């Protein structure tokens, strides 16, 4: 069942066709990897879907509802959440508060001036749970700015996840960490996402990670979708190999 | 009819002074992203030093000597700037800009009392220059020649600054640094030196404004604080970091102020602040400013 699809989506930056006539679909419950070389349009596509940018042409449909021109807030209410390429946290708040805040926001409780945040048992319990799911149970009291890079990347995902979105976009969740940490982070992310049946789209450069964890891979190049299919199919796709790896695959 | 001519000349006179102060403020902001709250006090210091040099030190001296001493204020203030920048401002460049506001505010407090200490609470004037240059007839009234000289200096300053920023190598370095500090540094520009020079020039201009206003208007305590807020309005309207903006803004503010004092004195200041507020709302970068 299709959760999200774009119809002839276009975004230009001057002469550059960052996203060029893209028909992108996401099926409910899958873990999809969005790959492509730098400048292929992956982040722009995610920016368009999350309302960080607005398209020049085309449509975005979530559950067949047209959300093309809705605001950031509307998209979030509709169930789209995202993390960013460069870790984007509330560095001077504790890791716990970062996650709790997402829950407060989701529950519409951030307008409460007259109650103590720390006393909301429901929110605390859920934040604890999420922290645990992401392996951050012992780091709650540290400020987000004081965590190690790998932990920050996980926290970044945890915060977006705590919004309990229908559709979660993760922009390079494993970039900037060591290989060992990469797999650990992806293990955590994928197990949470699958256990909770969250539909996730991950922008990723590391093809090993991509092949290991994805249900489906969409490869972009110069603003267009180059290939779209399960890992085995993509693995044998010459075009993908050429553009991404710069060489022909041995046949 | 003559009233209008006189008022017009007064407006341009005052605009010249405002331009010098505002352009300095704008330059410092444009290059260093610092809002120099002490800028008005530096203007006042320039006025005091020149008044002291002309009115006290060389009192009764030959007119030529007095004129030679006129820029004393500008030079003194530039020297002060050369000392302040490396000692008090440089340590804060890496810190959030709010801290820089606080430091310049502290400087304002200190400078106000430095002037009180050095020159006392009595107004200092440099009338001798004003008297020596006499006045010319404007229809049935007379207008001080000195004011016309100030207008001339203002025009010269504007031209000189424009040439300096847009036609010299140093100007290119200034503009490069103000646009992208890191890039400028990577290109081999000595950013530290550019900052110091920009700050010194900005201070020089504030001091010059004070120096040339004082034959017409005695130096008094508190003149800096009054001037700063007006310079602010100019820079907001004209755009932070823009030379043309400082010029247009100075003319606009000066004319509104003169007309205001003449026709509706109660609200002339309020009108200016309101204009500033409206400009900030519609076009926060001012008429010509750049977004930093």
């Amino acid at each position, binding site marked *: 069942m299709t959760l999200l699809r774009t119809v002839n989506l276009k975004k230009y930056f001057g002469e550059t066709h960052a996203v060029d006539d893209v028909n992108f679909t996401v099926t409910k419950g899958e873990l999809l990897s969005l790959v492509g070389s730098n400048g292929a349009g992956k982040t722009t596509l995610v920016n368009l879907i999350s309302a960080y940018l607005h398209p020049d042409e085309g449509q975005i449909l979530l559950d067949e509802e047209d959300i093309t021109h809705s605001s950031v807030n509307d998209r979030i209410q509709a169930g789209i959440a995202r993390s960013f390429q460069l870790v984007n946290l509330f*560095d001077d708040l504790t890791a716990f508060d970062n996650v709790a805040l997402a829950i407060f926001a989701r529950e519409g409780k951030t307008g409460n001036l007259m109650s*103590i945040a720390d006393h909301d048992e429901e929110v605390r319990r859920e934040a604890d749970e999420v922290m645990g799911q992401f392996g951050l149970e012992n780091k709650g009291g540290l400020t987000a700015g004081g965590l190690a890079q790998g932990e920050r990347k996980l926290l970044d995902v945890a915060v977006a996840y705590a919004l309990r979105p229908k559709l979660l976009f993760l922009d390079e969740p494993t970039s900037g960490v060591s290989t060992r940490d990469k797999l650990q982070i992806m293990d955590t992310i994928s197990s949470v996402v699958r256990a909770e049946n969250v539909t996730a789209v991950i922008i990723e450069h590391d093809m090993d990670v991509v092949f290991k964890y994805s249900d489906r891979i969409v490869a972009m190049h110069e603003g267009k979708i180059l290939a779209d299919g399960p890992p085995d199919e993509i693995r044998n796709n010459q075009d993908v190999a050429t553009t991404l790896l710069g060489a022909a695959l041995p046949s | 009819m003559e009233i209008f001519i006189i008022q017009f000349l007064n407006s341009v006179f005052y605009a010249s002074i405002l331009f010098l102060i505002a352009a300095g403020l704008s330059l410092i902001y444009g290059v260093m992203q610092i809002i120099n709250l002490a800028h008005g006090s530096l203007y006042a210091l320039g006025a005091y030093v020149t008044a002291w040099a002309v009115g006290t030190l060389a009192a009764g001296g030959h007119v030529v000597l007095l004129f030679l001493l006129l820029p004393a204020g500008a030079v003194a203030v530039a020297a002060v700037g050369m000392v302040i920048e490396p000692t008090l401002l440089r340590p804060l460049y890496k810190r959030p800009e709010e801290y820089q506001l606080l430091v310049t505010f502290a400087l304002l407090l*200190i400078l106000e009392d430095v002037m009180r200490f050095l020159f006392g609470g009595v107004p200092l004037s440099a009338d001798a220059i004003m008297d020596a240059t006499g006045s010319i007839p404007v229809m049935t009234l007379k207008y001080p020649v000195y004011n016309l000289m100030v207008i001339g200096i203002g025009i010269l300053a504007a031209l000189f600054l424009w040439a300096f920023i847009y036609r010299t190598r140093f100007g290119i370095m200034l503009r490069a640094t103000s646009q992208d500090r890191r890039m400028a540094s990577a290109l081999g520009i000595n950013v530290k030196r550019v900052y110091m020079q920009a700050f010194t020039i900005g201070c020089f201009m504030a001091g010059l404004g004070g120096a040339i206003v004082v034959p017409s208007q005695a130096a008094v305590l508190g003149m800096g604080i009054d001037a700063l*807020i007006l310079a602010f309005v100019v820079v907001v309207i004209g755009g932070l970091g823009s030379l043309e903006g400082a010029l247009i803004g100075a003319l606009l503010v000066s004319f509104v102020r003169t007309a205001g004092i003449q026709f509706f004195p109660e609200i002339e200041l309020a009108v200016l602040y309101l204009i500033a507020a409206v400009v900030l709302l519609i076009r926060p970068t001012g008429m010509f400013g750049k977004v930093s």
Partner: protein
Amino acid sequence: MKFGFIPTDKLSPWRLAAHGAPIVVVLLLFPQFGGLYQTQLLTYGLIFAIAALGFNLLLGYTGLLSFGHSAYFALGAYTAAFMVKYLGVGSMELYILGGLLITAVISAAFGYVCVRHTRIFFAVLTLALSQVLWTLAYKFFWVTGGTDGIRVPFSKMTLLGGVVDFTSRGGYQSFVFSYYYYVVGLFLVCVSLMWVIVHSPFGKALQAIRDNETRAQFLGIRVRHYRWIAFLVSGTFTGLAGILWVPLNGLVTPDIAWWPFSGEIIFMTVLGGFRNFTGPIIGAVVFNYLKTYAIASTVFWQAALGIILLVLVLALPAGIVGACSRLTAKLRQKKEDEEDMAT
């Protein structure tokens, strides 16, 4: 605005009350051993503490530096003064109601336009708007008394809805002591109120906006709206301080709307440390003493304050409270290290 690791206050209300109780006791007993002059001085300190507390909601918690908070202080003060002069009102409670209303309305209006911008433009806009008010106070002298100002004599005032008045009792001394307790009461209310606000989900959202506006937006937080509310609350607190100030000062003049006073409010907050809850309170009280003694000691008190501010910014950016908490953290760490080594 990003700074190093400063631990967030995580006291529960009970622990806070336990910490606060000795202070409350000291405050209540102060007039006994302080005497008339000191009591009056501390009253001013507490009033400014309320102003700084309000101001810091914007600076420390929302990351917005206002250079125009003198406006709200002045609005509170002038409203009270107008009520005395034009309506013949003597009840302090009415001053508070009227003043809070006016201040809230104007801060809402000013805030609405100001929060469309951030950083330097926000600061300059708040400055410009505050000076519009100053001009009105200064120029419309037939309404505001101009530089002569408006007198607010304590003898015609009543506290607690008329229960306490100063017509029959013996003069100034009685007023100072009664008024001190009144201010202490309101001060404690304000501190509690602000403490709750800052520790509420709203307060966390503000801090999130401060730390990372974009991410806050992508959590579904309406950034501009929340900034506006913070502005409104902040201005109203500072307005209350203005209302409380004017009966003690006896006179209101345009000076309190003049922009250097906004600078003083910032100074107080930074002095105590704006990344702590108690920083602005301590800073305001200390600043008040500093300024009073500076003025009494030298005619160059402005320079003295300026030098202190310079030292603060260059050497002690976390303010008094921040420096103290760093020091205690260091001492605690040292103690732990020594204990580790001993075992």
